[in-house]
């Protein structure tokens, strides 16, 4: 995910001083949802950037767990893989994966889990398995579940981070890798899931949240410079919009500087 998107927030005065791109806004919006002291189950990419940013700013006591076994880790640079040496070196402890999945994740001990997706539907069900007609003959084979299915099931709350287009926000996903709200209210309970399900879907355009009763995603906030029409045009279903639609605060100088400093720690060469 190269940092090369057009800054969508061309009109605000903050943006003129501090132009940002949509990845940065998405990362910062995710970081802001984290409260100090939370236990977060984190993945690689924007979730890591967001969690490290939150820990460096308003939530110094965030407790970060990665599925590789690193417990309460405090990475100073962006991990490039889920089992990065930096995550182990900066951890309070490193434990085996049975302990991570059975003792930490499964009992509902995690406050917030992060998920990405290739596809999402209106009930926040997500697909990271394949795109195409059939499991056996996929058009595009994706990596699969990894930790996602049980993260979606067992964390108290879940944040999904995904770029919003009609290819990703689809009426029907090709495969349910991880359950959001299934086909609506009661679905999670019927399936035996103990967590509350997705709380926020954070995109490069705004923030969506499940409606309390229907569990259908509703657009609740726009990032600065984004229009409702733009979001609707990038959603593959008839998107509901909150009456009290908010606008995300523009990134502060501190947030932007820290995100950029973090991204700069990444030693990964671009191929």
């Amino acid at each position: 995910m190269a940092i090369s998107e057009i800054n969508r927030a061309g009109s605000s005065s903050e943006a003129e001083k501090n132009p940002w791109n949509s990845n940065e806004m998405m990362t910062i919006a995710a970081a802001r949802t984290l409260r100090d002291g939370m236990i977060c189950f984190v993945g690689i990419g924007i979730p890591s950037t967001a969690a490290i940013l939150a820990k460096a700013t308003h939530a110094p006591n965030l407790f970060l767990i990665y599925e590789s076994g690193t417990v309460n880790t405090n990475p100073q640079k962006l991990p490039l893989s889920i089992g990065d040496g930096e995550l182990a070196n900066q951890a309070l402890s490193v434990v085996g994966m049975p302990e991570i999945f059975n003792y930490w994740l499964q009992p509902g001990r995690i406050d917030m889990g992060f998920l990405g997706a290739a596809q999402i539907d209106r009930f926040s069900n997500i697909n990271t398995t394949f795109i195409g007609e059939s499991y056996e003959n996929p058009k595009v084979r994706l990596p699969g579940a990894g930790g996602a299915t049980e993260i979606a099931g067992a964390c108290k709350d879940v944040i999904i981070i995904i770029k919003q287009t009609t290819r990703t926000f689809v009426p029907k996903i090709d495969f349910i890798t991880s359950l959001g709200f299934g086909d609506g209210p009661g679905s999670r309970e019927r399936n035996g899931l103990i967590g509350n399900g997705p709380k926020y879907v954070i995109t490069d355009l705004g923030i969506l949240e499940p409606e309390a009763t229907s569990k259908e995603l509703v657009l609740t906030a726009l990032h600065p410079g984004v229009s409702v029409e733009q979001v609707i045009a990038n959603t593959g279903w008839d998107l509901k919009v909150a009456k009290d639609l908010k606008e995300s605060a523009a990134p502060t100088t501190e947030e932007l500087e820290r995100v950029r400093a973090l991204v700069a720690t990444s030693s990964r060469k671009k191929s």
Partner: protein
Amino acid sequence: MSKFASLEEAISANVNDGDTIALEGFTHLIPMAAGHEIIRQRKRELTAVRLTPDLIYDQLIGAGCVKKLIFSWGGNPGVGSLHRFRDAYQNGWPRKITIEEHTHAGLTNRYVAGASGMPFAVLRGYFGSDLVDKTENIATIDSPFDDQKILAVAAINPDVTIIHAQQADRQGNVMAWGITGSSKEAVFAAKRVVVTVEEQVESFTPKFNSIIIPEALISNIAVVPKGAWPSYASGYYERDNDAYIAWDEVAKERESFTKWLDQEIYAKSSDAYQGSEA
């Protein structure tokens, strides 16, 4: 009757055509050199188990060693796809492979059940996922104490588990530290165990987050410095992220992969393994 052996001997003595193999290690301590030796010895019809196939199984699959892949996350971490896996699964090159796909929690617990000598382990997993309809070796059972439905995963007991670790002592006990993933369970679950290590030492010194694999559980040990490259060995060398990126190019086309296979595997002997040259 020392269990120390050359890598060639260790693989030859413990990996047979048709075996179920598990080369474990999660991002860290992936037994890459052992995987290359399996390719070099042209083992066939393997059922290959690993949470993250990673480069190691992309290579084994591309070389035609594997008939079935059992896994839970099949990408090139931080880079993208595993092209050889996709070419085999979707196009049957160099041969068709079947897959059995789990979640990390599920496959980890298949190892736990195997390590425990049980027919299955229980978890609250897969629920609500379409994987439930696609995946063998899972079942729903009733709790005998309340009305919960619970997921059972069948034990997996590899014919041979292979891991890489930092050190072996003179007796052949092994110490690994840092991220060990599901390696301990994969070792306990296996009928035979091969370990490659960075070095042999007189005795171990205490480390945070270390595990000890007693010699009694191990079939053979081979000292293979840099045996986890381009993954990493904490305390020895770091992950070679460039090599993971470079693999994307190598694996993308059959021609470039075949050339890599000839030059880096078949043209080299097992004792010439030096990760940094590949």
